[in-house]
């Protein structure tokens, strides 16, 4: 059974179609990266899954239960909004143990123990009895993740989970999400492609409310990412330009960009093209300072699909 199933989901806000027939299945136990430019419909999808918004048409299920504002599916979900808000007068431990634990139906003892565990996990144990009103954005983000994990949900919905975090915080949270692989299904929206590349097993790319790509990360890279070669010459820019022009007619060269004595060559993606271009570069009379065959990046896939 899929952890998350979305079928023909549409959401219309006045003249704006935030979601336009979204279909999506997310397998159990994976870390799923939900990508898309601003306004693509990522947050709308997450809000529908969290039971905070209703679809105009279509339906979604979490672990087989239909989602909605009064749905039991909320018992199976931990939700972290993009900018989590808290009661500023509350203390972190109090918020987790008394409020979140209580809402999730935990006993007081269980909630206290779990709250302490969560505070250690997100690195807030020293701030457990501080008022949340004095927390930085990064600390609120960590507390937001802690509250999402309180009831050990099988499905985690994370909206930009590392936004607002410093590099150390970002690393810690990504490691934490990485450790959840297999234990919970993580559905995270983000626009930080390097994070997705680092921890996600599968990726869905949303644009204008429609899913334009959905696959395992490796398959997407294989299918869409184009190999690029960057060469730096120790030669006059005119000579480099002259040499580069001679490559344009080659069938496996998709694009050439010049920057002084550096050339960026985009290939057509065939296996032979990488070998052929290497032979051509090394066979030239120009002195090669560096030759780099770039690994296909998710960013290239994203830009290719979205633009």
């Amino acid at each position, binding site marked *: 059974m899929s952890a998350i199933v979305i079928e023909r989901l549409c959401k219309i806000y006045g003249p704006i179609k935030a979601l336009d027939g979204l279909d999506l299945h997310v397998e159990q136990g994976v870390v799923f990266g939900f990508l898309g430019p601003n306004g693509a419909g990522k947050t709308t999808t997450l809000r529908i899954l*969290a*039971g*905070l918004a209703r679809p105009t048409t279509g339906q979604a299920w979490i672990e087989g239960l239909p989602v909605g504002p009064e749905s039991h599916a*909320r018992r199976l979900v931990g*939700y972290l909004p993009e900018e*989590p808000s808290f*009661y500023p007068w509350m203390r972190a431990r109090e918020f987790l143990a*008394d409020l979140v634990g*209580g*809402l999730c139906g935990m006993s007081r003892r269980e909630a206290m123990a779990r709250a302490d565990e969560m505070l250690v996990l997100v690195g807030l144990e020293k701030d457990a009895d501080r008022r949340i009103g004095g927390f930085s954005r990064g600390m609120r983000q960590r507390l937001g993740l802690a509250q999402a994990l309180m009831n050990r949900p099988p499905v985690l919905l994370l909206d930009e989970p590392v936004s607002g975090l410093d590099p150390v915080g970002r690393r810690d949270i990504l490691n934490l999400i990485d450790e959840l692989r297999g234990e919970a299904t993580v559905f995270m929206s983000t626009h930080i492609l390097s994070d997705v590349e680092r921890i996600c097993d599968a990726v869905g790319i949303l644009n204008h409310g429609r899913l334009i790509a959905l696959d395992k990360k490796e398959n997407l890279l294989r299918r869409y990412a184009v190999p690029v070669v960057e060469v730096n010459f120790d030669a006059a820019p005119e000579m480099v330009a002259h040499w580069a022009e001679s490559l344009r007619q080659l069938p496996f060269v998709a694009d050439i960009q010049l920057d002084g004595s550096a050339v960026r060559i985009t290939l057509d993606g065939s296996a032979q093209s990488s070998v052929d271009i290497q032979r051509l570069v090394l066979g030239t009379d120009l002195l090669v300072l560096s030759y780099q065959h770039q690994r296909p990046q998710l960013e290239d896939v994203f830009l290719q699909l979205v633009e």
Partner: protein
Amino acid sequence: MQTLLRKELREQWRTYRFLVVVAMLIVSGLIGPLSVKYLPLILAQMPGVPEGLMEVMPEPDVAMAVDEYVQNLSQLGVILAILIPMAAVVGEKNSGTAALILSKPVSRAVFLGAKLIAYGLIFFAGILLAGLGGYYYLGILFEWLTPVGFLALNGLLMTYLVMFLAITLCASTISRSQFAAAGISFGLLIFLSLLGAVPSLSPYLPTTLMAWGRALTLRLDVEPAWGALGVTFAIMVSAFLGSLLVFRRQEI
């Protein structure tokens, strides 16, 4: 329900709303009998008071003191019942805390119900303490009233204020800002006052509860205002159900 009710009560305490409401209601309850009793004496001591003023001032009695008590508590109580909960729902929606809470397995009815009960309990505490203080001063300054009558007066006053709490909660649910919510409640307060000018409607309006309570306290012979009590409960329940219906359809 318990978790959210505890949170609401703790919030009222930590943000000093509890203290503000209770303190203001107590002061308001005490000042009525005291001012009726001592205002003529204070005026008599003040220099420059026009000659003959003291002679035309009526002799303070328990009826005047009860009137002052009811007027002070009902007027200040309504203002507090509008200003204190005006951000109860819209504030949480705008700040994002409602989204965090409602993504948990909790029903929206419980979310609203906990708020209404918490505010009701604060006002109950305020009216209770104001009533005890007011009863004591009425007793020692004028005459000891029948406790049952005075209890009924405060019960009716409480019902009247809870109606405004429910109205403001509803306004806070449907509006997009706390000031709009307060505006809606004040608008309804004015509308109800204007309706009072229609003689055929007047016996059925919530303000009639004050007159009924006064009569019960002073053991006056008046017709019970069951109609007004029914209308008050109807408005209260409608406001709560209305806010629930709207809130269940809203996106957070």
